[in-house]
């Protein structure tokens, strides 16, 4: 630290010591970026200012490598009058009824979750929840797409249980149902798990909040937790550079969460919004006060005088630059008119939350921060928030692309007869990516708030947002890193198609998109090319499907050493159901119902779960994507559902038809007898062609249903009938698997991998130890 022994680095001092060396490189700034800061300020930055620029100009906060590409989401977006707030706000807001809006956004917390799985995942949930809260909404549900290294790797046994308890430990205590997500294993995530979290919120339209610190004379209030040294450098250090061995020593850079306080913060903020007591609000997440102060002032085009010593500290010895950089959790920044200050403090006090005036909005256009009377920061806030560097990074197609595409999975050895197919089905349902995930999802509360209409393992999570009208929203998050590795443009569209399809087969009309783009280092031209292609694919796809991207998050530097993760865009699609009763469950529910396969099956095995599980193979081209066919599928499901022609529907994705049938049977314990169409039984069972779903139709309605399919130009195949409860899954002429055997294979994997031996036996009738 340059200032040790010198004292406080004030603006005055910076002016008088222009040539003092500053550790900008250690803070992640490049020489030319440092020069620009000096230009903006007309002097060298103070220690505090340097810290602020290093944070706000980091990849995580400034999107400096991704900005030039992300513009497509706005430029190509289909016109939508439902969008009340879009990209650039804390979260996108979509109007779903005259007076009701829904907000949703997804974010990553990948790096912290590797360093410290429990707190990393917990604060990931906490962070996205505050984004939603900052829009004026009550958070109502969470979904968690997760990626881990190989299931059998010992480090996965460290990371996964920690991440899962972190998500549960925070989300459950906060009173938010977890209604969906994904758990995928792949060795490319070994040193770099992905922990993404999506939060959904609901609000009356009139309660929409803005972050602008408008109105000179208004008071800047810090609400919530005390500020400590936790999380300092989280975004600039952890999230903005590649992983190395030293990362493990960066534990202090991971924040520590207190879900109890966040719950109180939610109730406090909602009461303040309802009473119309705040002018502007911004959550404190990555980059802490630095980000909140500069963004709120920049958004309003105002200035701010902040007395930093008023910030309640957990550790009194903190220096001003540490207070500004701290990522302590459970804090919100409010802009309050002076006449409402007492009322704000009373509400906070009622909930036991600290509210502290730390400054005032000015018309100077300068963010001026003092520390016990001495000025340590004096800068134009937009230079931090909006004018960060923007790079058009070099891009190059990965050198192995041609060879990768030539190495097709369609040429791999296949099961040769019915017995071999039977074995393959059992092996596939037991594989880590396809097996039952109850061991994880039972650790999440899915009931709290009493509005959960559907939760994992259903196609999409469904939350009732209006108890009187029954209006509900469905959300699904999907992504397939293998597909994106093979072809990023198609892979991103396949992720979009799957999320869209999941929402549609759950009975909802898809409405809006959020995304979390997890990639390797942007300084690697091959990664940058993957990123650009994926963004282009997603933007084009959203335009074709007619649903806008409302916001999202980019996570770069997901690599260990030189090895990047499979590029993993996670796409969240939100849809609407006019009434919760329109939901379509996935599991067969009535013996005698007729089973149909919708969509076209091609011989598409490259990138498939089958190729990976049975051959450890990844090569070729991913399945073809036809977004217009996805739209038709979605339309026919909706039309059939409205006419009462559908009992159940389940999308086909990883593992193909075999997996979809197994899941539809196991959900409620009904068997099925199916006859595959002519051609290779193996291809019908394991191809991962997109745009397909398996549905069951009450007996007698099948003609009406197939007529509707013809009308919508959706290919259909009669597959068979739903069996009795407890009947086996039978594929005529190939094999029969008793449900108990199928269930055993499907359910045993996760507990065998991750359950710890019981600390005490169940059914314990003995006396507890006296000292318990």
């Amino acid at each position: 630290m340059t200032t040790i022994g010198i004292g406080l680095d004030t603006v005055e001092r910076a002016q008088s010591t222009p040539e003092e060396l500053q550790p900008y490189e250690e803070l992640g700034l490049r020489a030319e970026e440092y020069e620009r800061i000096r230009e903006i300020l007309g002097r060298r930055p103070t220690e505090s200012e340097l810290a602020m620029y290093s944070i706000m100009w980091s990849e995580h906060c400034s999107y400096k490598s991704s900005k030039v590409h992300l513009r497509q989401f706005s430029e190509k977006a289909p016109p939508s009058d439902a969008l009340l707030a879009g990209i650039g706000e804390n979260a996108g807001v979509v109007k779903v009824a005259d007076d009701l809006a829904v907000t949703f956004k997804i974010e990553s917390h990948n790096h912290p979750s590797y360093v410290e799985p429990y707190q990393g995942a917990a604060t990931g949930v906490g962070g996205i929840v505050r984004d939603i809260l900052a829009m004026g909404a009550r958070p109502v549900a969470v979904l968690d797409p997760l990626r881990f290294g190989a299931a059998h790797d010992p480090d996965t046994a460290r990371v996964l249980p920690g991440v899962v308890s972190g998500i549960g430990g925070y989300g459950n205590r906060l009173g938010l149902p977890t209604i969906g997500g994904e758990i995928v294993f792949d060795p490319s995530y070994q040193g770099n798990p992905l922990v993404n979290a999506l939060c959904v919120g609901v609000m009356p339209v009139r309660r929409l909040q803005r972050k602008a610190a408008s109105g000179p004379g208004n008071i800047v209030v810090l609400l919530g937790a005390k500020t400590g040294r936790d999380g300092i450098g989280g975004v600039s250090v952890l999230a903005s550079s590649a992983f190395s061995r030293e990362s493990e020593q960066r534990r202090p850079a991971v924040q520590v969460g207190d879900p109890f306080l966040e719950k109180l913060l939610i109730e406090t903020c909602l009461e303040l919004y309802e009473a119309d007591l705040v002018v502007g609000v911004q959550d404190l997440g990555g980059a802490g006060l630095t980000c909140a102060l500069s963004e709120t002032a920049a958004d309003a085009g105002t200035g701010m005088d902040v007395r930093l010593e008023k910030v309640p500290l957990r550790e009194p010895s903190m220096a001003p630059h540490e207070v500004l950089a701290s990522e302590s959790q459970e804090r919100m920044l409010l802009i309050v008119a002076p006449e409402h200050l007492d009322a704000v403090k009373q509400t906070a006090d009622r909930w036991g939350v600290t509210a502290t005036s730390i400054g005032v909005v000015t018309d100077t256009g300068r963010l001026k921060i003092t520390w016990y009377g001495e000025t340590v920061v004096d800068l134009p806030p937009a230079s931090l928030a909006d004018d960060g560097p923007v790079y058009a990074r070099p891009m190059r197609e990965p050198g192995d692309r041609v060879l990768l595409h030539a190495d097709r999975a369609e040429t791999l050895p296949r099961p040769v007869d019915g017995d071999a197919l039977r074995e393959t089905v059992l092996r596939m349902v037991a594989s880590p990516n396809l097996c039952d995930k109850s061991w994880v999802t039972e650790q999440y509360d899915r009931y709290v708030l009493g509005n959960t209409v559907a939760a994992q393992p259903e196609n999409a999570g469904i939350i009732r947002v209006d108890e009187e009208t029954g209006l509900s929203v469905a959300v699904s998050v999907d992504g397939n890193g293998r597909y994106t590795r093979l072809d990023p443009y198609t892979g991103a569209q396949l992720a979009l198609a799957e999320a869209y399809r999941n929402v549609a087969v759950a009975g909802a009309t898809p409405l809006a998109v959020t995304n979390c783009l997890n990639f390797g280092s942007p300084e690697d031209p091959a990664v940058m090319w993957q990123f650009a292609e994926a963004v282009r694919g997603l933007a084009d796809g959203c335009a074709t499907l007619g649903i806008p991207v409302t916001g999202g998050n980019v996570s770069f530097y997901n690599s260990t050493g030189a090895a990047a993760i499979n590029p993993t865009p996670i796409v969240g699609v939100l849809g609407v159901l006019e009434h919760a009763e329109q939901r379509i469950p996935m599991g067969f529910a009535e013996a005698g119902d007729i089973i149909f396969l919708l969509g076209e099956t091609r011989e598409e095995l490259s990138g498939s779960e089958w190729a990976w599980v049975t051959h450890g193979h990844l090569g070729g081209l991913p399945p073809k994507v036809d977004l217009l066919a996805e739209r038709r599928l979605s339309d026919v499901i909706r039309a059939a559902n409205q006419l009462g022609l559908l009992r159940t529907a389940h999308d086909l994705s990883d593992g193909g038809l075999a997996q979809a049938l197994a899941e539809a049977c196991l959900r409620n314990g009904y068997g099925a007898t199916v006859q595959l169409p002519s051609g290779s039984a193996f291809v019908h069972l394991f191809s991962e062609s997109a745009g397909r779903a398996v549905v069951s139709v009450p007996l007698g309605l099948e003609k009406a249903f197939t007529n509707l399919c013809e009308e919508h130009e959706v290919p259909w195949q009669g597959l068979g009938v739903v069996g009795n409860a407890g009947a086996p899954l039978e594929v005529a002429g190939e094999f029969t698997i008793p449900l108990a055997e199928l269930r055993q294979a499907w359910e045993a994997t996760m507990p065998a991998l991750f359950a710890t031996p019981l600390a005490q036996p169940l059914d314990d009738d003995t006396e507890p130890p006296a000292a318990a």
Partner: protein
Amino acid sequence: MKVGVVTFPGSLDDGDAARAVRLAGAEPVRLWHAEPDLRGVDAVVLPGGFSYGDYLRCGAIARFAPVMEPLADAAEAGLPVLGICNGFQVLCEAHLLPGALTRNAHLHFRNRDVRLRIESNHTAWTTGYDVDQEIVVPLKSGEGRYVADQATLDELEATGRVVARYAGPNPNGSMRDIAAISNAAGNVVGIMPHPEHAVEALTGASTDGLSFFTSVLKHLAGAAA
């Protein structure tokens, strides 16, 4: 009929308890932890959640909340009180019910639809059930393992105060599969699973839980008659 629902800081299922009360046909009245006032209610639900963050020990701080003072007195005098999940933990900490709820034997939070067998319909909250009736309600807790010393367990059994047991596999290691118990008078009941999350077909595990809330109304009507 008015049924109070207490909100402690960290209560999470208070809204759900209030909804269940409403669906049962009564008027829910929200009670605030910091006010020693029961506002003239005819019965009280202590809802699920993590009161005061469940720091120190589940329910240990809530037990000292100002609202608990009049509540404990009223419970002793016969006011029907139902503690669900965290509310059960609070009742045990307040010594309105015997025993304690400890960490699940498998050490994980567990959310699962569980089958319960009703063992007693002589309490204020279970008159609408038949003895041996099986119901399905969600369980969602990390510290739901009911423990007590052998003498207490024997006494609970002997006096018909085991209100419900887990009928399927024991999900948390509770002694003698106990899911719910009552005090000697039968007006105070603690239950670990969540009947308030089984009151609507669209959102619940079933609608089997509603009878807890209609039972108490019948009980109150009977007492008034």
